[in-house]
């Protein structure tokens, strides 16, 4: 059975985020409170990195079950880490956990216990900043990810295969991304082919199409291209998605079209869900 390898320190896996940083990412995203798409995506990734760090924290500290890369594509293609990790691609999670670019204080309303709300300040570590400038060189971004995936599968041929998560809001400006996407998923470990998930962030609002199992009902050929590029969800992610209230089938793919804020967070949560961590 593919996608069942145990993730351990001696057999870690890698998660590669590809973040669209094109100019259009400064448009507002669909949702209750309008926010820039770039902000929402950066927040979601920063939050996810905190989440992964907590999930992998043990007595002695954060364990390197994962190595994480955050690759931005817009005016340039390359590491989107800010601060001391700037310029790095795959970074062991313990190093990620210890080296955010900075820790912001964010205000947050929480229940005061007496039926009201009270404003508090919480610490929020940040690893990447929102950027929205340039075109959408998705091909180059996918090729960058492919080189990371190729190196990884050589290094850990028996482990859980790398997961590539592409977050974008527009069409590729450097050609059809299909071949570059296929190149990523043609790499495989003994546990299965590398996974590529695509998240399309909406500017238009409307109902998100989350985890579809066929291209029917997708509005245009671009959405169908992204659907075709996306890997089917492995079974443990399917069950997790189902437990989160998603409708899934055997053919469900790791793809969301027209995602709103909630869906972005949920998608990242499902797409990075690990098999057993030991």
């Amino acid at each position, binding site marked *: 059975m*593919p996608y069942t390898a*145990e993730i*351990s*320190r*001696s057999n870690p896996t890698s998660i590669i985020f590809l973040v669209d940083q094109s100019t259009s990412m400064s448009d507002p995203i669909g949702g209750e409170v309008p926010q820039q798409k770039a902000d929402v995506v950066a927040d979601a990734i920063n*939050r996810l990195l*905190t*989440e992964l*760090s*907590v*999930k*992998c*924290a*043990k*007595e*002695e500290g954060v*364990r390197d079950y994962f190595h994480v890369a955050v690759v931005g594509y817009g005016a340039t293609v390359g590491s989107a880490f800010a601060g001391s990790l700037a310029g790095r691609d795959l970074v062991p999670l313990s190093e990620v*956990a*210890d080296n*955010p670019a900075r*820790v912001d204080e964010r205000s*947050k309303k*929480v*229940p*005061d*216990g007496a039926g009201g709300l*009270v404003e*508090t300040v*919480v*610490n929020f*570590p940040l690893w990447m900043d929102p950027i929205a400038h340039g075109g959408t060189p998705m091909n180059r971004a996918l090729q960058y990810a492919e080189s990371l995936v190729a190196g990884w*599968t050589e290094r850990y*041929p*028996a482990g859980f295969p790398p997961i590539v998560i592409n977050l974008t809001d527009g069409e590729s400006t450097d050609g059809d991304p299909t071949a570059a996407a*296929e190149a990523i*998923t*043609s790499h*495989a*470990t*003994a546990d*299965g*082919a590398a996974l590529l998930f695509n998240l399309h962030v909406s500017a238009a609002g409307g109902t998100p199409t989350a985890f579809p199992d066929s*291209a029917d009902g997708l509005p245009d050929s671009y959405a*169908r291209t992204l659907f*075709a590029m996306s890997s089917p969800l492995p079974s*443990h992610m399917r*069950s*997790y998605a*189902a*437990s*989160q*209230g998603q409708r899934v089938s055997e053919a469900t793919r790791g793809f969301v079209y027209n995602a709103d804020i909630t869906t972005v967070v949920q998608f990242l*949560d499902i797409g990075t*869900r690990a098999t*057993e*961590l*030991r």
Partner: protein
Amino acid sequence: MGSATGPQPQFPSGADYAEALQHTQLCFRHPELKGARPELTKLGLPRAISGAFASVFSLTSTSSGRRYAIKCFTRHVPDQERRYEAISSRLARLNPAELSQPWNLGFEYLPDAISVGRDRYPVLKMEWVEAITLSSWLEDNHTDRFAVDRLADRFEALTRDLAAHEIAHGDLQHGNLLVASDDTLRLVDYDGMYVPALAGMGGTERGHRNYQSPLRGNDDFGAALDRFSAWVIFLSLKAIASDPALWNRLHEPSGEFLLLTEDDFKNPGSSTRLQTLLAHPDRTVSGLADQVRSLVFQPLDVLPPLASAVPEQRTAATTTSTVSARGTTAAPGAGGLPGWMIGHVPPPVTPTPTTPSVTSPDGFHTRTPLDVTAAALWPLMLAATVLLVVVGLSMPPIGPGVPVFAAAALTAFARSRREELRQSRAVLAKLTNELAQLDDPVKAAEKLRKDRAKFDAAEAKRAAAYPRAQDKLTAQYHAELKEAEKRKVRKQRDMDKKIDGLSEELRRALAKALTDKQSAYVRDQLGRRLIAQDPPHGIGPKLAARLAAAGIRTAADFTGYRSVRNTHYNSTGAVLVLSSGRGIDVHGIGEAKAIALDAWRKHLVASAEARQPTALSVSERQSIEQGIAHRRAQLTAQRKAVESETDVLRVKARKRLEDGQERLARENTLAGDRARQQRQEFSRRTVALQQNSALHGTLSASVEAARLRQRGLSFARYLRFLYIGR
């Protein structure tokens, strides 16, 4: 494991809790926890220790000053509150004086204790324990054989405590067994604990995979739950106590196990780790390893409790017994070994002493008549010599020395007839012979050492080659899987492309069918318009007849005209273009007539096109769609088939791997048997060498003594004996 398929009650994530715990004044209502100080990471966030079900945070109460471990749940566990209550009340009833060590920790389940977002969730409030995990402790202390052995015994005592109260922890492993500063054990994480009050319920977890029987299932839940893991842990601790080098040899840095892993239990035959322990010279280690090997295939409910390995009643005091004492403490009548070990240990060999029994005589005793004669002869012969010299009698054949010579000859003869001399010579010869029979112990020891070194080197080579050969097999297997996976992805992608292309194909086929239908209609309409019946302007019956003769009867018979230059009259003429594309010159049809004909035709075409059908009939459409649907079904079936082909490839690769592993394991077992025999042979040689060496010493001393005594039988001593009698 997330096997549920429907929505479950949602719990906050570890990071959600870490965020809420930044304000304990707000998130807690419990008086001790409200405002408690969380331990922070260097980023200033509450530090978590996370597991599959929960994250644990350390909080120090500002009101009581006490430190707690607060477990926050990230996943729904059925009957959680009921379980914790049953466990808590059972543990609270344990009498600390009856426990081998204070291993149990107090805890309290607090429903609705913490507020995260808009909702409240339960937490488990536990005593904070200053202790380190068993794996970290071993990392630091594995060379301290005494301490490790003592810990093994304490672990055994702990399992005895649990068994006595029919409690099972459910997940005994290096992370849940902590070692306090006084080297006693603490047991943490009671989520999966069984207490008798929970009888009849199911388990909540299956335990750490590197500690569980391959036969443990989801539903196993009962007092015997810990037995397999207890044997595994006890074996590991005893083995490290006996041979600390095993820690570095079998344990991998940051490996989530002690000495053995899940694979060793699933495939004990091909497990190098288990083989190493089975072949260990220490009988306690090999015996325990053999026990674990035999438990692997037994159903959980028939596994013996660990206490059966150490049958004598122990108290807390016995946990201070020493390494050397432990290996041999035993049940009476078991030959100094635990009961289960009988049959694993051969009876001790009793050496057979060999000592030389014959001795040589110490000097001459009791004169014989010959001795007396020789003694009497000497004075006579001396007197005769003196006489001869004085008289001056000198005969050529008889010199003055002759009588002395005769006496000496007779004496020598008499000595040679003495029994003592014969005996002494015989003894010396026998001893020398025996000594010669023995190998020189120094040389033999040297040879043994060399043989052993050679053997050890060969064994080390073999031991190193085995995992390499296994790795090679595994690598080959992985490569084959990877290849199969790639092939599948490639093929399916091709199929997908074809399937995706079908909609476009359908669209085109429908469009083409419509176009065909329309042009057929137009052609038909044109074919109905006879030139003769409905002549265009300027075409009379004559011309119509000529045209008919040329094969042009209806508007369908030609498609237009081409202007031609008549060289003859230097004027412009025309040829009509037939539907075949051929031009035909019809007498009387000049350019003007051709234009008229063409205009007539074009008009007809336009009016036909205006009336042509604009859609396909339902049946035409269906027939095309069915064709495409058939193709789609075929392609989908082919795509499915790729999956099963891949499965076949996977199964084949797996089979090759297993066959290879089996062959390797078989070879390894044989080689292991041979090695064991060879080692036994070495041991036999060592014992023989020790005995030999003692015998050699004794014999050498005897030879020396015999030589000394033989010197006591010299000619001079014989002469003395002749007159003195000793």
